[in-house]
């Protein structure tokens, strides 16, 4: 077992073990905190696919995160009020159905955004993905039907067959299971023909084109899959907070997702998990000490970007697998 695999295993066990212990000790707050870690990590796993493997610096993944969240919120609200969605299609509070819808919606929105954004590269790509996310953000704010600026509260958490989702621990286990499934998918994509081509496209698009594979299509697929995973996380996040609002779509969220990846280690399997753990811990610990925690978070982040390249996993497990 390589050093990185050992670190990964330890991180996974900590994330699974800590809430089990917390639940046994009767501290549901820490279970919720761990759920937050799992969901943010899942969102970042999605972004890591585009950013880490494909080198696509999307600054607009909050759009997909928020879309997943709004799908969950809108479906639950309609179901709660007993209104059909449109054309008589009934809404639902079943999590698997909501997840599927959220993932599909995120993917469908990602395709046109990706198709336009991927015509450009470098700084243009960063700014265009940012601009598209802002477009959806402003739409959510100015569209009054689903709460506008105030967002949308869900009175109860949606249902998963056979699990009582209202309790913190079962909901954590659902999120943890989804996170593990996403990590497996990431590992699978990384080793697949698609993943190999994607990494080749990051290293040298021209060479990839020369061997007969169009980088554009590969990147578009990766962008869409990445958006779908992040959308899934958005749906889980909405259920975690029983609230969805425009802040999920804001550019701060996109920035935070990038921060998670950098804190943990770009392009590494467990990078987003490590990053989410550090981020939520920092938020919790600093937030407990001072109201000005964002100031110190900024300083720490600046220090990491300037001096500790490779993130936590780079520190713990040495040489990066991806340069």
């Amino acid at each position: 077992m390589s050093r990185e695999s050992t670190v990964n295993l330890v991180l996974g066990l900590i994330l699974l073990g800590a809430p089990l212990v917390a639940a046994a000790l009767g501290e549901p707050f820490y279970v919720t905190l761990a759920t937050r870690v799992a969901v943010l990590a899942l969102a970042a796993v999605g972004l890591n696919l585009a950013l880490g493997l494909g080198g696509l610096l999307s600054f607009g993944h909050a759009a997909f995160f928020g879309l997943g969240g709004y799908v969950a919120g809108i479906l639950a609200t309609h179901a709660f009020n007993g209104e059909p969605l449109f054309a008589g299609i009934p809404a639902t509070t079943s999590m698997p159905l909501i997840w599927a819808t959220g993932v599909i919606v995120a993917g469908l929105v990602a395709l046109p955004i990706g198709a336009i954004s991927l015509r450009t590269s470098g700084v243009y790509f960063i700014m265009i993905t940012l601009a598209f996310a802002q477009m959806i953000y402003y739409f959510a704010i100015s569209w009054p039907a689903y709460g506008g600026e105030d967002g949308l509260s869900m009175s109860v958490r949606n249902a998963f067959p056979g699990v009582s989702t209202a309790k913190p621990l079962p909901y954590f286990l659902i999120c943890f299971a989804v996170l593990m499934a996403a990590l497996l998918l990431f590992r699978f994509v990384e080793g697949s023909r698609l993943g190999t081509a994607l990494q080749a496209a990051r290293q040298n698009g021209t060479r990839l084109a020369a061997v007969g594979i169009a980088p554009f299509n590969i990147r578009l697929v990766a962008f869409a899959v990445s958006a779908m995973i992040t959308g899934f996380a958005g749906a889980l996040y909405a259920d975690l907070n029983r609230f969805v609002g425009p802040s999920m779509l804001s550019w701060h969220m996109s920035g935070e997702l990038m921060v998670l990846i950098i804190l943990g280690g770009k392009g590494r399997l467990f990078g987003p998990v490590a990053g989410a753990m550090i981020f939520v811990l920092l938020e919790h610990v600093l937030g407990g000490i001072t109201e000005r925690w964002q100031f110190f978070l900024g300083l720490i982040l600046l220090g990491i970007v300037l001096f500790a390249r490779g993130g936590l996993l780079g520190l713990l497990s040495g040489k990066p697998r991806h340069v």
Partner: protein
Amino acid sequence: MFTALLIEQLLNGLQLGVMLFLMAAGLTLIFGVMGLINLAHGSLYMIGAFACATVAGATGSFWIGLIASLTAAAGVGAIIEVAVIRRLYDRDHLDQVLATFALILILSEGCRWLFGSFPLYLDIPPVLQGAVPLPGGGQYQLYRLAIIGVGIAVAVGLYLLISKTRLGMRIRAGESDREMIGALGVDIGTLYTVVFALGAALAGLAGALVGALQSVQVGMGEPVLILAFVVIVIGGIGSIKGALVGAVIVGVVDTMGRFLLPSLLSLAMPAAQATTIGAALASMLIYVVMALILAFRPSGLFAAQS
């Protein structure tokens, strides 16, 4: 009456455009010369507004406040360039985005620390209070006209600076070949600091000018920053001319969209519905325009040759 309203909205669009130009010119200059994407540019805008409001409040003079805003923004710009930004020039864009994102957190929270969470207010200077009559009836705020004037003056000034002076020559040389001008004996480090401070001063000026129209508060820079990104993407990153054209397009399209879309839609649907749908569509309009422009010209209208 409709013509007067139309002219008023056009002028409002122009005023927004000019403001965006002040922001976008700095961003595009910094990207063109140093290859740096600077998210913290909105924070410099905020610093300019806070400096102006504080100093104008203390001295009672808007003009001293304006000078303070330029000095403060340029000063903070120079400090962060030397302390942080300088280490980022040869890093990839991801590191630049994250480091300047961290700077936003630090500067915003620092500002809240110093000035508190309550917004500050800045009065329009007495000379520029009042309104001018518009052709076709109606009145227009003199101060907004003055902002348009300042924007045009800055555009002309920047053009002269870059095409006629020694500093401008060095900036252009830095854009096309930075090793070469270093080899020719120009202190490239100082040049970068000067360019960054110049961009920061323009952002600070924009913040101070707008501070008299809206409240001065933490986070005011971020929406403007993103609009400025849209501007430089439309105009072509690195091109000042592109920034000017892009800024006017974004300013006018955004303002006219908000003004005209609801009334256009009300021809086809009930008024209440038209207002909400119109407002929602208008808020997305500039991004649609940007997507259209990029679909035909992926590197903007006036892409810099490099």
